[in-house]
């Protein structure tokens, strides 16, 4: 099995705060992988480290055995929707075309095949009728689909998506799930930062469980176990909550918990 991503003892420090501490994991090529963990666990930081966007205090990241900066053309990135200002004088198609910039030289104008690819990507996310719409007039789900289309237009082998399921509508979720399936079928590797543990167990085959340190990484059924979740979430995971709620608690304890 080919290894797509390998992190070795990755440590990232922001100022005085350690965001990631000594994280080592490998991801085989062709899997749908999720990065999960509580808020502030360093999920986005790990993504940025894999993309080579931030300096590492220690350790290294290898994509197909090479430096991230060498293989940028084979990697596609879908940032968090909130990471940009959407009230920007651009149209939907303008943004999707940016996905093609990695295939162009610096200062080169997009060619007709780039427009075709961008259009195909727009069709895949069901946004072709909004191609000329100004960005400021999109709903949250539509914004997410624009970013998805831009990532698809990149035509990469590794897709890295930061919280694509956050705050979207049902239609966008359907599109996203369908795209993930298609990517999986065509043998691409996909890394998705996700916050919903239920969905992770259902959708993904590989999981990186994180809480500043690596808690566990591997096939989903090996990683999402009670002790691992306990370690990652410190007894506050959604799954644990649910188990606790189902269990019959003495009335006094239950009312205390509510307070």
């Amino acid at each position, binding site marked *: 099995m080919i290894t797509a991503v390998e992190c070795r003892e990755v440590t990232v420090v922001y100022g005085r705060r350690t965001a990631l501490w000594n994280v080592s994991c490998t991801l085989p090529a062709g899997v749908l992988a999720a990065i999960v963990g509580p808020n502030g666990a360093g999920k986005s930081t790990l993504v940025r480290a894999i993309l080579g966007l931030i300096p590492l205090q220690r350790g290294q990241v290898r994509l197909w055995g090479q430096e991230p900066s060498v293989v940028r053309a084979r*990697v596609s990135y879908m940032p968090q929707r909130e990471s940009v200002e959407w009230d920007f004088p651009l149209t939907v198609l303008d943004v999707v075309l940016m996905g093609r910039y990695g295939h162009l030289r610096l200062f080169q104008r997009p060619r007709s095949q780039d427009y075709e690819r961008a259009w195909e990507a727009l069709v895949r996310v069901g946004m072709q009728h909004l191609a000329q719409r100004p960005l400021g007039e999109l709903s949250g789900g539509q914004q997410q689909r624009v970013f998805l289309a831009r990532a698809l237009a990149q035509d990469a082998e590794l897709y890295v998506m930061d919280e694509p399921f956050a705050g979207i509508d049902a239609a966008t979720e359907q599109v996203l799930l369908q795209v993930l399936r298609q990517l999986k079928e065509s043998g691409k590797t996909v890394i998705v930062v996700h916050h919903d543990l239920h969905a992770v167990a259902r959708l993904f085959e590989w999981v990186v469980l994180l809480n500043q340190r690596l808690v566990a990484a591997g096939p989903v059924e090996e990683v999402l176990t009670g002790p691992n979740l306990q370690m990652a979430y410190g007894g506050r995971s959604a799954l644990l909550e649910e188990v606790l709620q189902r269990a019959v608690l003495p009335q006094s304890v239950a009312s205390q918990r509510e307070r």
Partner: protein
Amino acid sequence: MEGLLHPVVGGVLVGNLLIAVGSALVGTFAVLRREAMVGDVMAHAVVPGIGVAYAIVHRAELPVLLWGAYLSVAVALMGVSLLRKESRLREDARLGIVLSVAFGGGIILLTALQRGQGVQQAALWRFLFGQAAAITWSDVGLIAGIVTLVGIFIAVAFKELVALAFDAAFLHTLPLPLRWVEFGYRIAVASVIVVGVYSVGALLMGAFLVLPPMAARFFARRVKGMVLGAAVVASVAVGIGVWLSVTFPRVATGPVIVSTAALLMGISHVVAPRRGVLSQLWYGLGRWWRNWDEDAHKVLYQIVEQDVGGRWEGWHLWAFVGRRVRYRFQAVVVVLWLWLRGSVGWSAPQCWFVTQRGRERALRVVRRHRLWELYLERVLGIAPESVHQEAEFIEHVLTPELEEHLEELLQYPQTDPHGRPIPPRQS
């Protein structure tokens, strides 16, 4: 205005228009990147450079002073990035510190120079507030060269500059040598500011850089349009500034130019379609108008249903204003409104009728109101006596599609929670 055609004044005008265009070119990106403050820092940092250059060469000519200005802007920017690396200050604090240190140092330097010897010190102080009228034809050549280079750079690197302004993190994941674009952009901004300070002055050049693009943003749908609009706004502001500066030699040009640009921005803010204040107000007014119209029709329906025994025509005016509605004044207003809107009419004072239009509108709003009441009661389990208030609000915003869904969900009901009939759909 004839004065503007004089050869000397012509040089002033051309030089200043070039500066306006250059400023619009880079200012648009400064606004889109949210770096207005950086421009202000660079403008203020020009002052010490001019002082040093003058102290060395003892001439207050543009080419000499330009080099000093470039150098000190570069030093200031390096200072900002040094603070970014080595301190834990926030970005605005970093910029503020560099701005005040550079500007303060510059003022001390200029004061010292003035005390020393003084043929051209007045020319130095000019850099603080700007004097558009001081530009000569030989300056124009230099300005034209700089602005042309800036224009070529922006045109060539346009797609990268736009993408960097929108989503820099994404762009840095691409295999592109963006370092050079960023570097070129910084030089372009510095160049425009350095020549702009000559005309607008160090104190206000930062504002002049961003005001025209901000004005253009209200109209522009794409970045090219924003650059174009900014160039127009900046040119108008500069034109007025130059004209005043030529006519009244003691007027400081910078404040006039910047005030004009700010005024134009304020006007855009008010009158722009879609984004402007008036447009937004108009939209709000339209909503208020519609709500009021629907409420009036609802009253009409209630009168027909409860006061005149379900008849849509042939009743006396007093049925309208006397019985159903509590306050006569309000009733008269409602009737007048409905009459003006063509929803009711009369053949004789004792013979009023509801028109087809009034009937349709009344039925539609009542239908939405009662459907929603029923939904609240049946699906959400809210007590019948509390559903009315909620429906008063929803009846104005329920879309036809949602109305259809509701009806299906409630299995095509005949009556609302109070036992009153739900009018059938209007085709």
